[in-house]
């Protein structure tokens, strides 16, 4: 099994531990990832289509062309990247006039969009291609007793029906951890659609409301599947001198998966962020390394 790895911006440029965790975990699970050399921002769905749709389409199509030339489907690691690339891929593939227009622009850089590949979020690669049972077999330890609060992010929910899928919950259970329910689980983290860049204070308040609910539910950590949600939930807890401080560890699912696969914590960067991770790590370490 192989994929072209689309990195996007937030993971490689702000939270490289997510990139590292995904690369390590996927390798351990037998998924061969190929770098998309020269890829750019997807471009972000909350900003660029509103500034100039033609540019958004052309730059997104350029990224898709890189994978087409590699003859590989794309695996994304960010909800926003998934939404942009999947949407552009589908729109261009189903609209020959639009495709012709975009290809006219791409021809100036010797590229041509053909619509020959698919775009898949890494959570869906894990769920559909590898499967829960296989993941259970591959994990060297179980994260028993870890209370995890799943957080999808609304851009993922934009292309899945959460009531019927529950994929993240099943994947968390597959590692032996327990899912914790809390208010606002399926709502926006407050970052997307350009809110973070234009209404920063409000944006962080939205994120903090999720953190408060996770803390109230007594979860050990919140588990996300998107670097932008990750950044938002992590940074919202740093409220300066005013307001109550929260210390809810924010963990990407790939980091949790990596721990369950026996990958050393330093390789997954689980202990380097703003939020204190002592309790969470002690619990994980108890299960993973001391027994």
């Amino acid at each position: 099994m192989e994929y072209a790895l689309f990195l996007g911006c937030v993971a490689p440029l702000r939270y490289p531990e997510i990139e590292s965790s995904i690369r390590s975990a996927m390798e351990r699970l037998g998924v061969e990832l190929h770098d998309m050399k020269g890829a750019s921002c997807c471009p972000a769905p909350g900003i660029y289509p509103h500034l100039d749709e033609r540019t958004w389409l052309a730059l997104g199509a350029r990224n898709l062309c890189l994978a087409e030339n590699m003859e590989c489907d794309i695996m994304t690691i960010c909800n926003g990247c998934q939404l942009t690339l999947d949407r552009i891929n589908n729109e261009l593939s189903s609209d020959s006039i639009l495709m012709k227009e975009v290809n006219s622009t791409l021809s100036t850089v010797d590229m041509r969009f053909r619509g020959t590949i698919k775009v898949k979020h890494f959570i869906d690669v894990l769920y559909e291609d590898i499967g829960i049972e296989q993941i259970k077999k591959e994990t060297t330890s179980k994260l028993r007793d870890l209370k995890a609060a799943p957080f999808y992010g609304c851009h993922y929910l934009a292309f899945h029906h959460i009531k019927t899928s529950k994929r993240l919950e099943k994947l968390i259970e597959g590692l032996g951890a327990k899912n914790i329910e809390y208010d606002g689980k399926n709502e926006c983290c407050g970052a997307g659609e350009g809110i973070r860049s234009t209404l920063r204070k409000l944006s962080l308040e939205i994120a903090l409301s999720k953190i408060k609910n996770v803390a109230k539910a007594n979860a050990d950590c919140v588990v996300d599947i998107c670097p932008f949600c990750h950044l938002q939930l992590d940074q919202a807890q740093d409220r300066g001198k005013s307001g109550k401080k929260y210390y809810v560890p924010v963990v990407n699912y790939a980091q949790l998966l990596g721990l369950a696969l026996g990958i050393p914590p330093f390789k997954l960067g689980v202990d380097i962020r703003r939020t204190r991770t002592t309790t969470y790590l002690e619990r994980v370490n108890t299960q993973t390394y001391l027994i």
Partner: protein
Amino acid sequence: MMKKEGYPTRVSMLYSLIGSRAESIGTKNLIERKEHIAIASILFETGHSMKLVEDVRQLREKLDLTRKPPTTLTYITALKDLRKIMRITGFHKRFFR
């Protein structure tokens, strides 16, 4: 033209309204749109919507990753192609001149 991205129906109305407000700021008000144009200028400069800072370069090394990701930050020809596209579509002229 492409249908604009919208919030899924499962997201509460409050956040949909906030999203609509942000979108309105982003599309209709030239003065308030400056944050997005600033991000777009980083895209033109680097190929990404945020800059790679030294702390993250060091963190990448610590995690056994390359100091720069294998993107437009590493491949200059790819960055030139991206800039060429932004010029051809008129994006560069519209927002940066």
